[in-house]
């Protein structure tokens, strides 16, 4: 295949320290293909590679809004039913437990209210107060009421 340098007017090989023989050998060694068909092919390969590499990303980043319906159509309805039944059972259980707790709380509150609102009995006060009102001769009055 013919080869050529990628020379666009640069001063390759003319720098003072360069050895012309080595530079010539290097040029032969590193020469790029000169055929136009090669470059057209490479351009095609590059664009195909870009297209292949980026198309997957675009699909991944931008899912269509209707793709959810497709997934729903493909779904296994038996599995969906089982999941729904399990969820319903869990919800019912949770409601039952919550009701039981609510009733227990109400009972507790009622009992506490009954205890806290009741008046305390003034046991000592009642007794001493009653005695304070009795006169010292009360037993005598009780035993001989006609004398008073």
């Amino acid at each position, binding site marked *: 295949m013919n080869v050529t340098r990628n020379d666009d007017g640069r001063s*390759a090989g003319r720098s003072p320290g360069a050895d012309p023989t080595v530079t010539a050998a290097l040029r032969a060694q590193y020469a790029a293909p000169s055929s136009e068909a090669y470059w057209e092919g490479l351009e095609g390969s590059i664009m195909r590679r870009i297209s292949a590499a980026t198309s997957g990303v675009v699909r991944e980043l931008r899912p269509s809004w209707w793709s959810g319906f497709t997934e729903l159509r493909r779904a296994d309805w038996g599995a969906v039913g089982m999941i729904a039944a399990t969820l319903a059972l869990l919800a019912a259980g949770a409601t039952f437990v919550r009701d039981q707790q609510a009733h227990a709380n109400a009972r507790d509150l009622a009992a506490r209210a009954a205890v806290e609102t009741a008046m305390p009995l003034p046991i000592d006060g009642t007794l001493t107060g009653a005695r304070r009102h009795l006169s010292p001769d009360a037993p005598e009055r009780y035993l001989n009421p006609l004398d008073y």
Partner: protein
Amino acid sequence: MGAERPVSPEVLEERELVLAAQAGDNVAFAGLVRRHQRRAYAVARAIVLSHDDAEDAVQEGFLHAFRALERFRPEQAFGAWLHRIVANAALDIARRRKVRDADELPETLSKPHKDPAESDELRVRLSRALDTLGERQRAVIVLHDVEGYKHAEIGAILGIPEGTARSDLHHARAHLRRQLSNLRSES
């Protein structure tokens, strides 16, 4: 403050291609590929050892450039930006190749894009001499002496200071001269 340099029609045309490609026009990006693939190949070929690896590096480089196109500012030189990306892709391939070849037979001579029947003593010796150079020094001497890039341009492509490119070139030339000296004395 100096006057602004007039922008050439080629640069304007390229800028339009870049803007169109950034807007999602793949035909415009194909136009950029057509314009730059030869020099991209030259940059890649200076770094890797074979034509096939250079081709791979060019394709990888354009793919990376396409993906990063949104971040490119159109007022910059597209070629310089692209060459840096292709050089990085080529360096990556060269490193992977080095690791792979470490377990295989030492058959990593530079493979030129020509019929093996055309090979001669100088080419074989040069290939061996180039293989003993570091990949950066080899890239520098090829980019400078074969492709005609200036030290500053080489520095920008390979991501090294201009002075390093200059010093690498000096060492690479001296190395090749030493390696090929007995060949000349024989002939």
